[in-house]
């Protein structure tokens, strides 16, 4: 078959029924400021790692709510914990605290 260089897009359906939202509930308990995020993207705009990589903190926050753990586990390890996102966050989310808690959760859930 001729290869035209195109493929079928991956489905962007969010499977709330199948996704595991345990991380979100865990964060709500240990780092409640996570609920303040409005995914405005200010963090992403200033991110030192984001300038060179696919790290996108507001997308991670969205994924936390959606329960997309595999994406989070892949992306989160690019963070340098420099704290710029925290300083620009208009809702004062403790972003560095969130990241550490995610890492801690992922470590304990062996992902």
């Amino acid at each position, binding site marked *: 078959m001729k290869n035209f260089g195109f493929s079928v897009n991956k489905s962007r359906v969010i499977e709330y029924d199948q996704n595991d939202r345990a991380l979100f509930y865990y964060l709500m308990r240990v780092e409640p400021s996570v609920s303040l995020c409005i995914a405005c993207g200010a963090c992403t705009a200033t991110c030192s790692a984001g300038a060179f990589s696919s790290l996108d903190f507001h997308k991670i926050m969205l994924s936390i709510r959606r329960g997309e753990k595999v994406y989070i586990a892949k992306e989160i390890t*690019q963070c340098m914990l420099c704290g710029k996102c925290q300083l620009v966050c208009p809702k004062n989310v403790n972003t560095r605290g969130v990241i550490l808690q995610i890492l801690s959760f992922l470590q304990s859930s062996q992902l």
Partner: protein
Amino acid sequence: MKFDWFVVPFAVGLVGLILFLTLKYVRWILSLPKEERKKIRKSFFSTKIFAFVWEVFREALLHVRIFKKNIILGYMHSSFAFGWFLLIVFGAIEVEFANSRHANHLYEPIFFRFFHRDPSVLEHHAFFTFIMDAILLYILSGLLLALTKRLYSRLMGMKKTTRLYWTDKIALYSLWLIFPLRLLAESSTAGIYANGGFMTNHVGSFLANLLPLEKIMYPLWWMYSIDLFLFFAFLPFSRYMHIPTEIVLIALRQAGIYTKNKITGFSQLEINACSSCGICIDACQIQDVLGRQNMIPAYLFQKIRHEKVLKPALYDCLICGRCEEACPVNINILNIKVAKRNEKLNHKHQQYDYLRQVTTELPKTQIAYFAGCMSHLTPSIKKAMVSIFEKTHTPFTFIDEDGSICCGRPLQLSGKIEDAKILMQKNKEIIAASGAEILVTSCPICYKVFNEEYQLAIKVMHHSQLFDLWSKQGKLKLNAQPIKASYHDPCDLGRGSHVYDAPRHILNQVITLQETAYQKEHSLCCGGSLGNFYFQEKDKVQVAQDAYDKIMTNHSEMLITSCPLCKKTFQKVAEKPVIDLAEIIDKALMQ
């Protein structure tokens, strides 16, 4: 042979304690890396041994550092340590004089008055009874102060005294009872046989009028011995473990060993050398402003000793170094906390493949300027720096003009030390590519890590040091400004890197500097610390407000700091302008 069955509890307690401690210390020392053990062996046969003896005398016995904090507190601690030491030394000498043989039983000096009831046959009896009574009085006066401290700690310059663990309480009460029981036991014997000194004879004759001394003398000696046993038995599981441990710690520290990134046997020694004296409680701003206490070393180490470390206690810390500065044992608290975080955050490595994209082609000049993440978020500081370089016609390379990667210290503070090394390696390559001789940074966080961890071949300077150097070289021509301002020492620049004078030298040429009680090593953290992963915004604002109010005097028209992060944090709560040192220098600089 001088023996009675009541010596058994004391002897069993002491021998057991010595065996237990020896095993513990040997295990900790053997767990150290080979080269560190070699250092210990070497230091044994060097002149360091004199420094060791001197430090033990000053700190483990006299507690000079506590005297410097508060005289009454110092007296209280020294009365127990030095007083007990004197009691042992003079007790041993007294036995030497009393017995013709030299190998005396371990317990004989302790129960001397019971076994030697006839004063007429004892050599230098009057002298020894006087000395021993005087020493006992010295300890009892300290005991009185210790009791007062539990009720009213402000007398000794402390707002709060330490909350104790149950094993601490048993050890504490048995320690407190040792000396009154000794007084009562010796006095009851003296009341019957008149073999005591100025205090015990008088107390003895007083007791003789009230009580049947013949009946209570023997049980009192038993109680004294049992109490000693109790203290020895609980010592290893209580804060009193600091008594023997501090001596071993001083020896190892003299040998050049310290806690770096990992919890080692030496760190265990440091943790056990904490006396939970509570001096760090008042130093902690989180405790002072927010009332939380888990993170205070006196409590954190207590928890570590009992193997109960809660994560918030480790991560809710500003790593500002105020506790370390206050610690009379000089324990390297910050490194222990970070190493403990490292233990907790034992994750797989971060993925930093993207670092390959970071370009390293830079123009070659003598000075490389690294603004750092925080300066990029406070652009007025980097603009001021660029302006100063231009006004002074200094060629420089702005190595992170278009943004760069983090210096690694925030990652290190989280405990992810191995991951921080990956960033450091990349930054090293960038700095080397600049070909500069001096690396200048505006951020104390970057300065500390570049200066201490990177081991760069070039000189690292914070901008305050560069200005000071230029001023000494006559390169900076500054206009004095009619401003009265307070200066805030950032934690990583002040306590962290001991840069106190450079910013003051330069500021004194430009403005009128207001003295405050919270300067240099007593400086307050702004609350914006990258070391705390637990702080919520309201916590940060409260700490910043408290620090701002304390630092600003009535006459201050502005607050000057040398840290972009402090500037940003203070700006949220300040009524008056908050500016960076670079900005005021840029303003005052004559073209």
